[in-house]
């Protein structure tokens, strides 16, 4: 209640300031609402993201922020529930924040896109840009695309393509296992499509959907996978669903390669353990060994600083690209007006901190950037979560090779 009163008071003060200073935000900081699960079974992911974002924002702010203002991250717990994410959106728009950011859960992302669209058309005075940092269902920048939605992670069809490209020639039988919701089904479809396009010789010997976050014992799935004769397991699982799956597979000693999309996230390395040496691969936007591998001393020093501070890996250094885009677009827009920033973001090109070219594609607001496949193994420079094993880059796919067509028909508001 107290916070609600405070919010009200803040709102009154804010509108008073705005009446005086015109439509420009009169506050000292540019606020970015961040909503993800910060409690419940998937809290580990949200919490790790938050810490990494904060580290990156401190760096961006030390480089001057934008328009003489600093960026400020305001976290909202959404407990993995779309309804709670919408409450976060309401708070963000009530406080006139120009950005809302969300990473986990394509079902939540779909709800947010719709709600942001509605809000922005009804409330032109408090529009907001939705920065998608990790909800990767392909349709979000295709059928469901929106002018207010910008996705900074490769969508699942792009990740699936990277996965298919990384599959070695000797692997001809694969097993798909995914979570039964928007994202998992998207991965299932996209992996099959990519395999059909790039690797017609590969046979899908099993295809399974599991209830999200409900399975406690994956041993029976491993039995089934083994019986199918698969050489590789391709999965988009994340959180406990991924950790328990791989752990069960390694415990059973099954001869299998694991191709994942999220094994490099917080908690993954510990769950896999030393038994997974050389068996687990992950499609990733970054790992701490990329910088030393390509000899980028500056990026290496910057990631190492985070490593010394926190007990987990700096896997989301790719978020730096997001904040650099927001910084650049805000500067170009010349004001913290979401409409101007959104137009500035469209088609914006940027060299990321590793030195690769990236672009925010105008047609569908999908970031086209490089992507990597890392192998979890011994003998890398920076290990993960003190396990002695870490991610070594096995495959690099450049942005230009990862551009996929889009079906998006973007509706743009009138430029101001």
């Amino acid at each position, binding site marked *: 209640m107290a916070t609600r009163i405070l919010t009200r008071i803040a709102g009154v003060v804010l509108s008073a300031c705005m009446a005086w200073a015109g439509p420009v935000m009169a506050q000292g900081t540019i606020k970015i609402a961040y909503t993800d699960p910060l409690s419940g079974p998937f*809290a580990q992911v949200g919490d790790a993201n938050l810490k990494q974002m904060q580290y990156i924002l401190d760096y961006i702010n030390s480089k001057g922020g934008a328009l003489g203002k600093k960026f400020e991250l305001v976290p909202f717990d959404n407990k993995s529930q779309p309804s709670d994410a919408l409450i976060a959106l309401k708070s963000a728009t009530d406080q006139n924040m120009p950005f809302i950011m969300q990473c986990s859960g394509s079902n939540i992302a779909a709800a947010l896109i719709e709600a942001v669209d509605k809000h922005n058309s009804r409330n032109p005075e408090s529009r907001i840009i939705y920065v998608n940092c990790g909800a990767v269902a392909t349709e979000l920048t295709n059928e469901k695309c929106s002018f207010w939605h910008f996705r900074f992670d490769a969508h699942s069809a792009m990740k699936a393509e990277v996965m298919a490209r990384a599959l070695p020639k000797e692997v001809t039988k694969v097993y798909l296992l995914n979570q*039964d919701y928007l994202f998992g089904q998207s991965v299932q479809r996209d992996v099959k499509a990519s395999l059909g396009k790039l690797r017609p010789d590969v046979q899908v010997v099993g295809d399974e959907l599991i209830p999200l976050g409900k399975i406690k014992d994956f041993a029976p799935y491993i039995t089934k996978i083994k019986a199918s004769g698969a050489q590789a397991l391709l999965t988009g699982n994340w959180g406990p669903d991924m950790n328990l799956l791989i752990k069960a597979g390694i415990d059973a000693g099954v001869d299998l390669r694991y191709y994942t999309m999220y094994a490099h996230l917080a908690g993954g390395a510990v769950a896999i353990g030393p038994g997974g040496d050389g068996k687990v691969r992950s499609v990733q936007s970054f790992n701490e060994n990329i910088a030393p591998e390509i000899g980028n001393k500056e990026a290496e020093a910057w990631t190492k600083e985070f490593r010394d501070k926190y007990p987990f890996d700096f896997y989301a250094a790719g978020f730096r690209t997001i904040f650099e885009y927001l910084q650049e677009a805000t500067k170009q827009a010349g004001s913290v007006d979401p409409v101007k920033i959104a137009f500035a973001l469209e088609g914006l090109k940027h060299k990321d901190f590793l030195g690769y070219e990236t672009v925010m594609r105008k047609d569908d607001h999908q970031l086209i950037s490089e992507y990597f496949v890392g192998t979890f193994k011994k003998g890398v420079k920076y290990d993960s979560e003190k396990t002695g094993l870490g991610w070594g880059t096995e495959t690099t796919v450049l942005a230009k090779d990862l551009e996929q067509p889009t079906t998006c028909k973007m509706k743009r508001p009138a430029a101001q």
Partner: protein
Amino acid sequence: MEVFLVSLLNGLVYGMLLFMLASGLTLILSMMGVLNFAHASAYMLGAYFAYTISQQIGFWPALVLAPLLCGAIGAAIEMYGLRRVHRNGHIAELLFTFGLALIIEKVVQMTWGLIPVPYRIPAGLDFPLFTVYGTHFPAYRAFMLLISALMFGAIWLGLTRTRIGLVIQAALHHPEMVGALGHNVPRVFTTVFAAGTALAGLAGVIGGNYQVTEPAMAFTMGPIVFVVVVFGGLGSLTGCFIASLLMGLIQTFAVVLDYSLADLLRWFGLTVTSATPFHEVLTVPLPRIGALLPYVLLVLILVFKPRGLMGTRDT
């Protein structure tokens, strides 16, 4: 055959783990009438204690110390919390344990962090015991089976063959009479609650490194344990044992049996096509709803046999 045998083993291991968790809860529930929501939290605490202790002095001392610690916490909860709340009836007790579960989860998050801790199987047990058709059966799983079997034996003997067991059983049904005979019933309650919590702690010690030790482990284990307890029936250890194994096996076999209702109908000569009404539901394969089956059974048993499989009292 290969799949059947391996699945049988898997189901057995998982079922026994469930039993270790559920046995403590069934004792507490049937004796004190408290649906202890914090029971799975004791499981989680057991795992985390074992992790911390095993880092200092090794796994084997942890196997003894962590459950004892959990038991001590359980005793404290009963003596200083539940006993007071008890006067206000069962609803108050229920809410009390529910709040407790949330608090414990938060405390664990603040103490050990949100990400999983590297609680590993001891090196002495980290080898494949035997190989069934190319699938390793880890020695640790055999160890889990052994511990849970020993536990079942010990509880059963303790309850039926010892004096304290007889007192507990009597207090289960007629606490006033037992009190009138000069037994300290509150102390019996405390003992049972502590023992139940310690059993959950023990399950945590051996389940924490079999699965992953993380703050969500209590939350994910909680519901299924209630199903086992209600399904097995109140006041029946044997019922609980059977229900645990049944749930373990059902969940395991549901994964490997790739059939749907459509396949069942085909037996009766009915073919399901996309034109059939409800074909979406009829063609859902069993693995996709496997995790749901225990709850279906819960609903069915409550409707048709409210006392549970071998229950002696109403829920």
